[in-house]
């Protein structure tokens, strides 16, 4: 019951958050130099043409009127019509979102698979060579810009060895796993590195904690200590970290999707910005905010279930 109440309260608190997001993005796009009319009609269009386009798009209305329309339409589920795509923003986003979501989850899955076991190995061998090796390798991955590592992966694994396709995203689930493997690896290089780091220090922290030392001194087997204390602690910190970085992860797809020619919302956002597609930028930002908020909520719920200190308030 308390949980339900908490969820309702959090959902209620999202309203002012979204309102703030809407204000920020609305103001920000209108401060961008250049306007959608030029993006639509091209540099060669006459001033009269541009004026006509602005009129048609409603950009000549006073700012407050435009903002009022944005808010009221959004509440009714209407995000307007994309200038670039000439289609309703909601439709455009729903077409592209699954691809990005798939890519992100795929990358997180891969990261956990890689980073989880290795973090344990590193932590248990703290300071010795396996630890140093693992951390160095992950650090190298973390420090590689996606637009560089992506191209290296494509050049060698896709174009030369032909193990994977260059870009695209497949139709079936299996085909997607295959097509999106390299982009996921590129994203996972970053994610797995931060997960590994975080997990490693969480494990070490627990191992060093006095109660664990005490348990060890009492002769409790390592396995039991790991299972009881370390795993829970590690899980909490990893989920928190993933939840926290979901925003980073998703906006990181912006460059990844461009390099790997994956038609997701990240690439769409970049295109929308460069086309000054106000409705699409606004719609994407809001969608993003909703997604991230929901993930945060789930993270907190998960955290509170595992860690009673994190009271739900």
């Amino acid at each position, binding site marked *: 019951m308390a949980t339900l109440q908490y969820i309702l309260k959090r959902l209620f608190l999202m309203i002012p958050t979204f309102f703030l997001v809407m204000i920020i993005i609305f103001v920000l796009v209108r401060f961008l130099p*250049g306007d959608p009319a030029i993006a639509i009609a091209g*540099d060669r269009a006459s001033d009269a043409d541009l004026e006509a386009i602005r009129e048609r798009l409603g950009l000549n209305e006073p700012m407050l009127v435009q903002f009022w329309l944005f808010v009221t339409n959004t509440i009714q589920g209407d995000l307007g019509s994309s200038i670039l795509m*000439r289609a309703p923003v909601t439709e455009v986003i729903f077409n592209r979102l699954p691809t990005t979501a798939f890519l992100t989850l795929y990358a997180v899955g891969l990261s956990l698979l890689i980073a989880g076991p290795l973090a344990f190995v590193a932590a248990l061998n703290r300071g010795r060579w396996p630890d140093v090796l693992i951390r160095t390798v992950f650090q190298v991955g973390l420090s590689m810009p996606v637009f560089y590592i992506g191209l290296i992966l494509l050049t060698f694994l896709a174009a030369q060895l032909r193990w994977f396709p260059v870009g695209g995203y497949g139709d079936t689930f299996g085909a997607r796993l295959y097509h999106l493997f390299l982009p996921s690896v590129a994203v996972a290089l970053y994610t797995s590195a931060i997960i590994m780091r975080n997990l490693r220090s969480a494990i070490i922290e627990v191992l060093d904690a006095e109660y664990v030392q005490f348990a060890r001194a009492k002769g409790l087997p390592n396995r039991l200590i790991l299972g009881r204390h370390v795993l829970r602690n590690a899980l909490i910190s990893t989920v928190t970290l993933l939840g926290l970085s979901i925003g980073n992860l998703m906006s990181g797809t912006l460059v990844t999707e461009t390099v790997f*020619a994956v038609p997701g919302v990240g690439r769409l956002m970049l295109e929308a910005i460069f086309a000054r597609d106000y409705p699409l930028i606004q719609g994407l930002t809001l969608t993003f905010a909703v997604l991230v908020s929901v993930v945060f909520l789930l993270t907190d719920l998960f955290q509170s279930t595992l860690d009673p200190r994190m009271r739900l308030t």
Partner: protein
Amino acid sequence: MKRHLLLATAIISTAIAAPAFSQERGGVLNFARYDGSNLIDPIYADRNPDIWMVGSLFDTLLRPSADGNSVVAGLAEDHSVSDDGKTVSLTLRDGVTFADGTPLTGEDVVFSLDRAREPDQSPWSGLLGSIESVSAEGNAITINLNNPDPTILSMLATFTTGIVSKAVFDAAEGATDQEKSAAIFASGGPGVGSGPFYLCGFEQGTSMKFCANENYWRDGADGKPLPYLEGVNFQIIPDDATRILKLQSGEVDVAEFIPFSRVPELDADPAINMNLFPSTRIIYSPINTRETRADGSPNPLADVRVRQAVNYATNKDALIGLVLQGAGKPMTSPLMAAATPLSTNPGPLYGYDMEKAQALIAEAGLEQGTEITFTTLAGSADDSTIFAALQQMWAPLGINLVVEQVDGPTRGAKNRSGEFDIHTYGWVNDVNDPGQVVGWLGYTPTANAVGTGWDNAEFNALYEASQTEIDPEKRAQQYADMQAIYAEAAPLLFMYETPFAVAVSASVDGYVQTPLGNNIFEEATVSR
């Protein structure tokens, strides 16, 4: 070298095999594009990725000749212009149909041309401003003009006069013509155009499919209708390096817009034909010629001698070497690519001459260390290279060149408002006539002479006169005069012409990109 050799081999083998020639047919061509189409419609196509595809879906009454300097029969099998230059008569080919088999009639022609010249809906209507009325009687089409128009025949061979089906537009959903067009495009299908292909698949920003029009009127080398291909699949891959990898891995057959730095490497690959198609693309930089800058400070570039000096101090050959790996040539006409009709060809324009440049600077009394801002496109490797080279080249003039990187819309806004000193720019002709590009670059009322604020009464008068001059010699003289005036005044940093670099798999033959940029697939073949 290799490409010329291949071409020669192709011609020889065609000649030898002529009698028992079996034409390669079938197959789907996979094409990697740098950017996607939004709406392929003769009048709403406003960006190059749209414009360059219109011809594949919509035929025009006339077609550009192979050399690009005149027109030949298209949907109209013959055409004539009256002696007073005010009436164009055309005869529609018998039995031509739209891709779905419905007949293409004079009514469709009238509808299409009326739609294209309606200022409220077509951004290109200005190009057809001379038309007073269009009428049809059976197969006879008559176009009456308000005044003689030297460009009218070229215009009838240009994408914006592509013929659309009136019936399909009448039946389409939507309140306005544009909404109807968008609805027709979104649903795809063969009814609306009579080009060699029709749209049979479209995913915004991702992919697009063309299918062969089985009712196309032109025949191929084997006497059967074109096109040879079953269709073309387009994928949009904005990243240059990824697009090339896609070709190298064999996932696509054609990759367009190859960065020139990659050309030598791809040229050396036996599995790839590296094409450099001649184009009308020019790369230049508008110079703000206004007396004061937008912030009110005096503008050193208002002095024509300073503008001439920076032109002389720019080593175009070095730039071409650095940016294009030699695959380009310096501009020779100040107003257009050399391949444009009526371009004069006086040899190198502002050939590199540092002494002259320094003398001009001294004469103009330019202060040493004068700061000039060069606005470039953010993320463009070419622009960064150009800036770095110019910075060094102009240093001996006492010019301290600083960079300002902006994105496309910002650059467009700056060009309009005049808030720049010099910025990079480029142009490709849309029409096979110099009128459009000269109007853009030099005629003040169009767009402040490409934003430079340059305003020359003599030039503007010449341009206005040339717009209605149908005597070819007089018109040529007007254009020669305009080019001389413009070169002298130097409102631009004149740079170079570049070809279209398209890498094509060795299994593909006959794909062409025209000097106007149009992608031509109708005679392309692919052997699997």
